[in-house]
């Protein structure tokens, strides 16, 4: 894990409010372990907002690190204004990763901006030729940046039905499970979605790993600010998203 000034190689809009940035970060190569890991970004030199922003890594190839982010507030907006050729201070890679179980068919589910780690996992499985399913959910079609390919088990859902399957990411799940009863779910997305997946997978006794978010100050396990409730299976009331996570077994999490 290092703190570096990374060159912005590209920064472009993928879909409505969704951007992708590519950073030159060859120095991080040794520490990169896989999907789930994140970086902490210093958005601006101004102290108006003192803290860095965590962003999941959406890909790492040939020393180039990709993030996918949503314009959410002033900080992410500022990020979208940064030009290729500028430098961005990043710290990372931080956090743990999804753990694939070779016996189980991976079902990847990404929602909204939470698709970054899921996207990376998808690309890795694809490259390794590992069969898997990918479900990406969004509110409407304009937020999607790929096409659905049902033959390849790449499915899109939209809340408003404007693209792909109408409804939440849970809608296509039973069909996939019918074909692949021995599956494991890997997901990242907004909390209501993760809750729904937690409930669904508990119900079906499916193993699931969820990547969760929390406000962070340090990203290093120092400030104890990113604690979340984990009075599920885990033996402690709180866990730190930055060092114990961001990936947790669905059973550990207590969304309250």
């Amino acid at each position, binding site marked *: *894990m*290092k*703190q570096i000034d990374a060159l912005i190689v590209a920064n472009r809009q993928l879909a409505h409010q969704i951007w992708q940035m590519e950073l030159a970060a060859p120095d991080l190569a040794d520490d990169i372990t896989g999907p789930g890991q994140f970086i902490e970004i*210093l958005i601006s030199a101004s*102290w*108006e*907002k*003192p*803290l*860095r922003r965590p962003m999941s890594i959406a890909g790492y190839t040939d020393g180039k690190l990709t993030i996918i982010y949503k314009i959410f507030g002033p900080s992410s907006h500022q990020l979208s204004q940064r030009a290729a050729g500028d430098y961005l*201070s990043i*710290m990372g890679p931080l956090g743990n990763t999804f753990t694939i179980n070779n016996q189980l068919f991976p079902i990847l589910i990404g929602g909204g901006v939470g698709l970054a780690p899921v996207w990376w996992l998808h690309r890795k499985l694809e490259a390794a030729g590992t069969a898997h399913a990918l479900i990406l959910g969004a509110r409407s079609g304009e937020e999607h940046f790929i096409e659905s390919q049902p033959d390849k088990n790449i499915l899109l859902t939209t809340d408003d039905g404007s693209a792909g399957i109408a409804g939440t990411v849970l809608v296509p799940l039973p069909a996939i499970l019918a074909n692949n009863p021995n599956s494991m779910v890997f997901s990242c997305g907004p909390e209501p979605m993760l809750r729904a997946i937690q409930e669904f997978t508990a119900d079906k006794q499916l193993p699931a790993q969820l990547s969760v978010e*929390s*406000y*962070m*100050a*340090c990203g*290093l*396990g*120092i*400030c*104890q*600010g*990113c*604690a*979340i*409730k984990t009075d599920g299976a885990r033996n*402690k*009331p*709180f866990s730190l998203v930055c060092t114990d996570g961001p990936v947790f077994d669905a059973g550990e999490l207590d969304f309250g």
Partner: protein
Amino acid sequence: MPGSLILVDLSTNLGRRQFANPVFVASGTFGYGFEVERLADISKLGAIVTKSVTLEPRTGNPPPRIVETTGGMINSIGLANVGVERYISDYLPQLQGGGADFIMNIAGSTSDEYLKVLEKVEAISTDIAGYEINISCPNVSEGGMEFGVSADQTARLTRRLRKRTERLLIMKLSPNVTDITAIGLAAQDNGADAVSAINTLVGMSIDINSQRPDIYRTLGGLSGPAIKPVGIASVYKLARKLSIPIIGIGGITSAEDVIEYTLAGASAVQIGTANFRDPACGINIINDLRSRLEDSNIDRYQSLIGQVKTYQ
């Protein structure tokens, strides 16, 4: 002066103890020190103040625990820590190998608790430089009022701790009082070697969409550049009344801030929130401080202490 070859002496003294330089890292913002080793040569720091340790391990407050504000942040971690036993068994050994001086910050909810933590450390052989006593904790045996808002309780606690250690004893003052100098004097008159100021300001913010506080415990502690003027004012007021050294804390992000605190009366400083943005900032600040003093032909850091030239 470009090309000058003056060798700046950054060392500073707190009581009988000398430190290599005045740039410390503040309790709760640097863990137990070694977490940052991969990012910076922490042995260069003036001192590491470890996070508050209590008698028993504490899991801390329920989330959410932190939130950002304009120029600062609010936290209510709830003194999550491993407890003094594990501090001694797991962390002290690593700290002692780290190369930097370190100061143990202690918290408690009764004065006996503070005492026991200190006694347990005194009982072993360690090269700990001293203790910083976090008195911004509710005193449960005295009705839940913070130790640090009462001169009497501060006096009593200082006196009891002083009897049990020869090491550096620093009382860490709360800014949430009508007169911080009264608390500082109580510490000084009862044997403290130094005071540090300030801890966080009581602050709060609300998420207007959920209508919930941003912090589970509703109120939290405000830190960061936003509070620097309160820190400077506190150090200045203390410096005019106290004769023991003062450690300045609050919103420090640069060597310029270190000098500002020093002119106000600080003999050393601690960096808090800025560590979250850049865990290596302490090291950079030490280097910048050296260059700045070099450029101004100031050969001793200590010559700046309390040198503010007021108008009146």
